[in-house]
Structure formats: structure tokens, C-alpha cells
């Protein structure tokens, strides 16, 4: 069964190919069937392969599909590498992807670009699968750019509106900044190891570098640059909120569950290099911690339902980066998985709400939806609970609690990381339940146009179940002590080194985390249910701060000032291309001389001979004077 691995990325690609080639002649039904069945089959194969993989206790499986290119010493193949890490990602991508496809059939039903949408979505899944299955960094980069392209296409899916195209371009260009860093990192890796095979690099790196080597640090920072761009972390985070211009399923799949976590995957995959570059790893943690705080603050102030979720995504990926930074590799992957479930669920739920209310994004114009859409309400509540890490019942609690505890207890952790993570957890639960209370409670403010159908409900419910039970594959020592995921990942990712004497703090920290999460919910309840006027009062008393957070800490304005405007200025003064001026001058001079000298072209033969003679005389005279 495992030899069918190549089918997993190929099937979505075939789907995309068929949809693109037949886009004008195919019916919606056929397009939906092709789009969903290819992903469904891929998911099925993933399950079968995963079962075999677990049953036979395989370490890793490598499949070379064909040789891509071979140039003097560099041989790059379409070769796939399956191990526990890529298996987890495969599972999430194909499963969440499949349910989002199902949901999209209903969501996009009346859209003119139905076939196009599924073609892009299939292409995206294919690229993402290539990314996680790649056994060399070139193929990984192909997938990396492929998902970037699909992200661009899907953010600008409704390209009739100018701002959507603008958001798409912004996302593409900002991630491209990171991609460039990544590309340079790959060049440097090739320069050092003369190969781009990931496993080869990971085995050779410890032999070649001692911890803290400068080259290793530079490469690790460059890879981090790529990861930061793709995963919307500080300082390249500001594209993600704008990326919400795309359809909600796209936000769910690409900008929450899969693509934005590619940075997490990259760092986890290249963990060997980060262990040799402690400085870079520390910065991964710092970026994660700072990002989760500022994105959380911004999420507190947003009115747009999807923008709240976008900032929350940035914040949650910040948690994953924090986990990577403290060496809690499997905790990061665990949180990635759980986050994919509940964030996809939340986005789909939000999409349903927005869809039902005539594309109304402002949640303060919603309200009272609890009774109109009970299934959506309950699933959304589960997702929100998981995001806010409501203790014991939700999966989010287990994954986030692990990160919180390790931020305190791991050898690379520190109290600062812990405080940041804890504050972030509090903010998370506040803005999550603010969203829930404002949207679903209170009086009905907008009339619901159409209620969600069966397909949407199925997708929501499956994801809700996963958001609840997904956490039980990894339970803390104090509570059940199940370590399925970390056992699975252990051969690939080293386990976290704990600080001496920190084991005992686990219960305490779990209690603190649970209290913080619940108090956040309570605070949101007081502000938005009990005394709604209180929120406005605080908002107006700290108007400046509110505005700052609302604008995402004004990073866009900062970049506008620092990068865009100088660039525009330079391009304005260079409008007529300074380099070009030189060549234009050359042309003008040539033209001038050509016209001048063409007057000597009299057509009178004797003048030409005269010229030749005069030239001979001059040259002879000169040579006489110079020689003597």
C-alpha cells in the first residue's frame, strides 16, 4: 500500500488538470465530484498508508517518482519522503482539505467561478502535499511557491473588486520577501553540503558544524525568514488579515489550516540545523511570543468576524513558533494539528454566518444567531472553546497547555516566554468569546437570508468532533498520560529537554492556564452580555490604543513609510530610467554623427580618392613626427 504514496499529490493534480482543461464545458455537479473525489481518494490513501506505516513501525519511506533534473553534482528528483512528521501533515491536509472541499460545494454553489475555484483548490492541495512530502529542498521550494501562487489566485478569486486584487498582490509580495530569504538559505546550504537532500543535510550537519557556528546561524535565520513570511509572523504578518478577501473556505484551508503552517513545518523539518544554531532558535521563540501578543491585541479590537479569526491565526501560529523556539518540537506539531481542526471549523462557521447574512462581515451587525442556526452555533462554540483552551473537554486545551508548560519547564524556556504565552492565552479566550457572544447572543440585527444545508453541517460537525477528541491522542502526565503523537514523532523530532526540577510544576501550571482561560471567558461574558456599555466605555477611554490595535499596530503604515514610499520616490525620479538615458544618448549621438558624416557621402568618386589620399598623407606625416 505504501508504494501508492505518489498518488497522494498526483490525484489532486489530476483533478486540477481536468478542471482546468474542461472548465468551460463541465457542469457544476461534475466539477464538484472531480474536485472532491480526488481529495477524498487522497485522504483514503493517506489513511491506508498511515495504517500500514503505524502497523509495520516503519521509520521512513522514500519513493523516487522520477528525476527532475541533474546538473553537475546536483541531482534533483521528484522524490517523496514519508515519515511521522509528514504523515501528520498529510493527514491534516487531506482530511481537513476534503471536508473544506465538501463545504465549498455548498458555499460556492451560486458562484460563477465554481469550476475555477475547485481547480485552484485542488492545485493548492497538490502543491501543499508536494511541500510536505518533498525529500529535497528544491522540491519543497516548488511546493512552497506553488502554495504561494494558489494563495494569490484564491485571495484574488473575486477579482472584480479592486481591493481583493490588492490584497492578493500584498500577500504574494510580502511572502515573496520571505521566500527570497529562503532561496538564499537554500543556496548557502548547497554551498556547504553540495546536496539539497533533507535527510542528507540533517545527518551531515552535526558532523560539520559545532553548535553556534556562524554559518549554521545565518542559514537558520534565512530559513526562519522564509518561515516568517509564509506563516505571517512578525515582521511579515500584515498580509494575512487582508488575505481574508478570499472566499471563506479558502481562508479556512489556506490561511488557517495548512499553508500558513508551512513555516512551522519547515522549521520542524530542519530542526537539526536550529539545534546547531541556538541564537536562531531563541529568535524563533521570541518572534513567536511577540507575534502571539500583538496579534492577540489586534484581534480584541476587530469588528470583522473573519479578521478576528485572521489575527487569531497569526497569534496561534505564534504559539507554534514559540514551541519550536523552546525545542518543544512535537508540541508545535500537536498544536498545528489541533489548530488546523478548530480554526478550519471556526472559519467555516464564520463563512456560514457571513453567507447566511448576505456577506455581512461586521459582527456587531449580527447577533441572536444561536436560535436561527443551532448547528452552526454549537459547532462554532466547540471551535471557540478549543481556541480559548477551555480545560479538559476541548482539544485546544491539551495542545496549548503543553506549550505553556514547556515554555516554563523546558531547558530553553524562560519565565518571559511563559508570561507571554499566558497573557496570550488570556487575550485569546477574551477575544474568542467576545466573538461568540456578539455574534450568536443578543438580539437579531440582520435578517438571515438562507440557512446552511446538509453538506455544510456535515463538514462543520466532523471538524467539531475532531476539535473535541483530537486532543486525546496526547494527554499530559498528570491526566491520563497518553503520548501517541509524541511517540510517533519521536524518531524524527527529538523530545524536549526539561529543566532540572521543573517536572513538579506541571499541575500548578495547568491550573493557572485553566483559570486564565476561564476568567477570559468570564470577562468577555461581563463585557458583552451583562454590561455591553462597559466595552464601549473602555474603548473610548483608550481610543488611541484601540485605534492602534485595530490597525494591526499600524505595521502597514510603518512599511508604507519605510519601504513603499521611498521605493515610489526612487521609481518616480527614475521614471525615465537612468541606465536607459545612457543608451538613449548613445543612440542620439550615433544618429547625429551618422547624419553629419552622410553629407560627406557626395557620390563623387574623386572626393573619396581625395579623402583616402589625405588620410594617407596625415598618417605618414604623423608616423614621421612620432618616430623621429
Amino acid at each position, binding site marked *: 500500500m505504501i508504494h501508492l504514496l505518489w498518488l497522494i499529490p498526483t490525484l489532486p493534480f489530476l483533478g486540477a488538470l481536468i478542471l482546468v482543461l474542461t472548465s468551460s464545458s463541465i457542469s457544476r455537479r461534475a466539477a464538484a465530484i472531480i474536485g472532491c473525489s480526488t481529495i477524498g481518494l487522497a485522504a483514503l490513501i493517506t489513511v491506508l498508508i498511515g495504517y500500514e506505516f503505524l502497523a509495520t513501525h516503519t521509520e521512513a519511506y522514500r519513493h523516487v517518482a522520477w528525476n527532475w533534473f541533474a546538473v553537475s553534482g546536483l541531482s534533483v528528483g521528484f522524490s517523496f519522503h514519508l515519515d511521522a512528521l509528514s504523515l501528520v501533515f498529510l493527514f491534516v491536509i487531506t482530511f481537513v482539505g476534503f471536508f473544506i472541499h465538501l463545504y465549498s460545494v455548498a458555499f460556492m454553489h451560486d458562484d460563477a467561478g465554481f469550476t475555477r475555484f475547485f481547480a485552484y483548490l485542488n492545485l493548492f492541495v497538490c502543491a501543499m502535499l508536494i511541500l510536505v512530502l518533498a525529500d529535497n529542498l528544491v522540491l519543497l521550494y516548488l511546493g512552497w511557491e506553488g502554495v504561494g501562487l494558489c494563495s494569490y489566485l484564491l485571495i484574488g478569486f473575486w477579482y472584480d473588486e479592486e481591493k481583493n486584487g490588492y490584497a492578493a498582490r500584498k500577500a504574494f509580495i510580502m511572502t515573496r520577501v520571505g521566500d527570497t530569504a529562503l532561496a538564499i538559505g537554500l543556496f548557502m546550504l548547497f554551498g556547504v553540503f553540495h546536496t539539497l537532500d533533507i535527510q542528507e543535510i540533517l545527518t551531515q550537519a552535526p558532523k560539520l558544524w559545532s553548535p553556534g557556528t556562524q554559518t549554521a546561524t545565518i542559514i537558520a535565520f534565512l530559513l526562519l525568514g522564509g518561515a516568517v513570511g509564509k506563516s505571517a509572523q512578525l515582521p511579515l504578518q500584515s498580509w494575512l488579515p487582508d488575505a481574508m478577501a478570499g472566499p471563506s473556505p479558502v481562508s479556512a484551508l489556506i490561511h488557517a489550516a495548512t499553508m500558513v503552517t508551512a513555516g512551522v513545518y519547515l522549521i520542524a523539518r530542519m530542526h537539526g540545523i536550529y539545534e546547531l544554531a541556538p541564537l536562531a532558535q531563541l529568535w524563533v521563540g521570541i518572534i513567536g511570543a511577540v507575534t502571539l501578543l500583538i496579534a492577540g491585541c489586534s484581534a480584541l479590537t476587530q469588528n470583522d468576524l473573519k479578521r478576528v479569526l485572521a489575527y487569531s491565526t497569526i497569534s496561534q501560529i505564534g504559539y507554534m513558533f514559540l514551541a519550536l523556539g523552546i525545542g518543544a518540537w512535537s508540541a508545535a506539531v500537536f498544536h498545528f494539528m489541533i489548530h488546523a481542526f478548530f480554526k478550519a471549523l471556526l472559519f467555516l462557521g464564520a463563512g456560514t454566518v457571513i453567507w447566511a447574512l448576505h456577506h455581512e462581515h461586521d459582527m456587531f451587525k449580527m447577533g441572536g444567531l444561536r436560535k436561527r442556526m443551532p448547528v452552526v452555533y454549537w459547532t462554532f462554540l466547540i471551535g471557540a472553546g478549543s481556541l480559548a483552551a477551555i480545560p479538559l473537554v476541548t482539544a485546544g486545551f491539551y495542545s496549548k497547555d503543553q506549550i505553556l508548560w514547556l515554555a516554563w519547564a523546558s531547558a530553553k524556556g524562560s519565565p518571559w516566554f511563559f508570561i507571554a504565552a499566558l497573557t496570550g492565552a488570556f487575550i485569546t479566550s477574551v477575544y474568542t468569546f467576545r466573538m461568540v457572544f456578539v455574534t450568536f447572543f443578543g438580539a437579531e440585527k440582520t435578517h438571515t437570508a438562507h440557512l446552511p444545508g446538509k453538506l455544510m453541517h456535515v463538514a462543520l460537525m466532523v471538524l467539531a468532533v475532531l476539535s473535541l477528541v483530537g486532543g486525546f491522542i496526547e494527554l499530559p502526565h498528570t491526566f491520563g498520560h497518553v503520548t501517541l503523537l509524541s511517540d510517533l514523532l519521536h524518531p524524527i523530532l527529538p523530545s524536549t529537554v526539561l529543566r532540572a526540577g521543573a517536572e513538579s510544576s506541571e499541575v500548578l501550571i495547568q491550573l493557572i492556564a485553566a483559570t486564565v482561560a476561564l476568567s477570559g471567558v468570564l470577562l468577555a461574558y461581563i463585557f458583552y452580555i451583562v454590561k455591553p456599555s462597559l466595552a464601549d466605555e473602555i474603548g473610548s477611554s483608550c481610543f488611541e490604543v484601540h485605534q492602534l490595535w485595530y490597525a494591526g499596530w499600524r505595521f502597514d503604515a510603518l512599511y508604507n513609510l519605510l519601504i513603499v514610499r521611498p521605493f515610489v520616490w526612487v521609481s518616480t525620479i527614475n521614471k525615465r530610467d537612468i541606465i536607459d538615458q545612457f543608451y538613449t544618448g548613445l543612440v542620439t549621438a550615433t544618429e547625429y554623427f551618422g547624419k553629419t558624416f552622410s*553629407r560627406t*557621402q*557626395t*557620390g563623387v*568618386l*574623386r572626393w573619396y580618392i581625395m579623402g583616402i*589620399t589625405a588620410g594617407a598623407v596625415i598618417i605618414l606625416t604623423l608616423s614621421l613626427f612620432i618616430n623621429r
Partner: protein
Amino acid sequence: METVAVEYGLILAGTLFALGLISVLVRRNIIFMLISVEIMLNAAGLAFIVAGARWGQADGQVMFIFIITMAAAEVSVGLALILQIYHQLKTLDSDAADKMKG
């Protein structure tokens, strides 16, 4: 056998060349120009012969033979051209053939 100083041979060649050059520049009749070119070519050949004689080598004469070959070819093509020009323009004036002026 008394011999001649090389410079006198070369001065003779130079003089003939200069005379041919003057004629080429002054004449408007194309046939005269052709004749003058022949004088100049002959002068160049003479210089080769003198140089060959100076070193007692056959190379100068070989060069003269090449020049003579070239002169023969040039005259045949040149005369054909002159006939064409006369046919087209009804004159031998070289200044009349100035359609190529820039």
C-alpha cells in the same frame, strides 16, 4: 657588375605612384582614371621587385605576379563597368555617377 642603390629604385616607384595619384585625382574621365590606377599598380609592383632584388629573393617577383593577376582581373571588370556606365549615362564623366550620394 655595378649595382643600383635600393633607394633610387624605390624613389622611381614613388614618383610613378605619385604621378598616377595626381592623375586619378584630376581626371574626370573614367577611362583615364583606370589608366592611372594601372600606373599606380605598376609602381607598387616595381617597389616589390626592388625589395626582392635587395634581398636576392624570389618573393618580390611572386608578389609582382600576384599584382599583375589582380590588375588583369581589375581591368576586365573595370572596363565592363565603364561600358555599362557609358551605356546608362551616355557619358564617361565619373562625377555623373553620383546616385549613391548620402
